[in-house]
């Protein structure tokens, strides 16, 4: 058995002894090793540079007005504590909301058409690649930001509900609207 095993291994050895097999099939780009040592040198010089070692350069040159952060905190608190319901409840004048929405939508549509034409003229001067890169970059950041908000679907659903509600829908909910109509017209 031992003899058999050693014979097999000898045969394997001789197969592997084939000189061609020892040749490396991997190659590197032209001048790779010269470039590599250059890269390493430059990296070391960067890491050991004045810039990276200097503690003075790392100091913050920017300042704020006195007590700025205290004031910032109170002004933010003032903004968030303003109850959103400070806006007078308008349910009585629900129809006004929809009228206003309609006016705004029409306005946006008209403005949008003009703006679009202007934008097209403006964009014509910009290389396509630049536009694509800009849009991709912008979208990636915004998309990621949106993804980190879990309630996104609820928010979007609410927006859709709010935006698609029609006057008749509102009337169904607030039958008193009919009366308000007459009253306000007068």
């Amino acid at each position, binding site marked *: 058995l031992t003899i058999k095993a050693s014979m097999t291994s000898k045969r394997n050895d001789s197969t592997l002894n084939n000189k061609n097999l020892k040749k490396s099939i991997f190659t590197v780009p032209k001048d790779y090793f010269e470039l590599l040592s250059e890269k390493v040198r430059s990296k070391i010089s*960067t890491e050991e540079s004045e*810039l990276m070692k200097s503690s003075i350069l790392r100091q913050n040159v920017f300042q704020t007005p006195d007590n700025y952060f205290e004031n910032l905190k109170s002004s*933010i608190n003032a903004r968030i504590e303003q109850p959103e319901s400070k806006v007078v409840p308008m349910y009585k004048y629900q129809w006004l909301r929809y009228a206003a929405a309609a006016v705004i939508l029409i306005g946006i549509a008209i403005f949008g058409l003009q703006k679009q034409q202007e934008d097209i003229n403006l964009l014509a001067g910009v290389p396509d690649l630049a536009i694509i890169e800009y849009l991709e970059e912008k979208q990636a950041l915004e998309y990621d930001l949106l993804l980190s908000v879990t309630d996104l679907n609820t928010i979007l659903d609410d927006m859709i509900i709010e935006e698609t509600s029609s006057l008749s829908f509102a009337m169904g909910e607030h039958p008193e609207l009919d009366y308000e109509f007459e009253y306000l017209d007068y």
Partner: protein
Amino acid sequence: LEDHQIIENFKDPSTKNKAFNALLEKYQQRIYWHIRKIIIDHDDTDDVIQEVLIKIYKNLSGFREASQLYTWLYRIATNEALTFLKRKQKKFAYSLEDVNNELENKLSSGSYINGDEIQLKLQKAILTLPEKQRLVFNMKYFDDLKYQEISDILGTSVGGLKANFHLAVKKIQDYLTED
């Protein structure tokens, strides 16, 4: 207060505002300095940070804690600061002026800036960098963030960030040793 506790307290209406104040206490300065380094001007930074903090307030209850809280905060701050600069650049679209020029002028003559010549030169050098290199350089050099953290904030690969930082350092070095 731990971040997780802040987020939990924020979800409870009775402790919501207290939790938000704890968050402000803990992070508003870091967020401010991050924006300030991008926008340079104090008044502009003040406008942007207010919007950022309000945005954080409005969206915090939906934060899933899939990433660290401060990377999320930095991300919102970065996004808002860059959007601000882009909006500004749009206004310059038809003139030869450009946002970077304006930022450079503010460095030389703006208020609430106090540095010696070489420190200001460094800030000017940073302004010559492309956007991503500028961001990485600021976060790594001044804020000492790890590549992985910067990668979470900017959504760019660690390898790409390393290359960008290396390039930035090299360019700044050349700039600083010029004339």
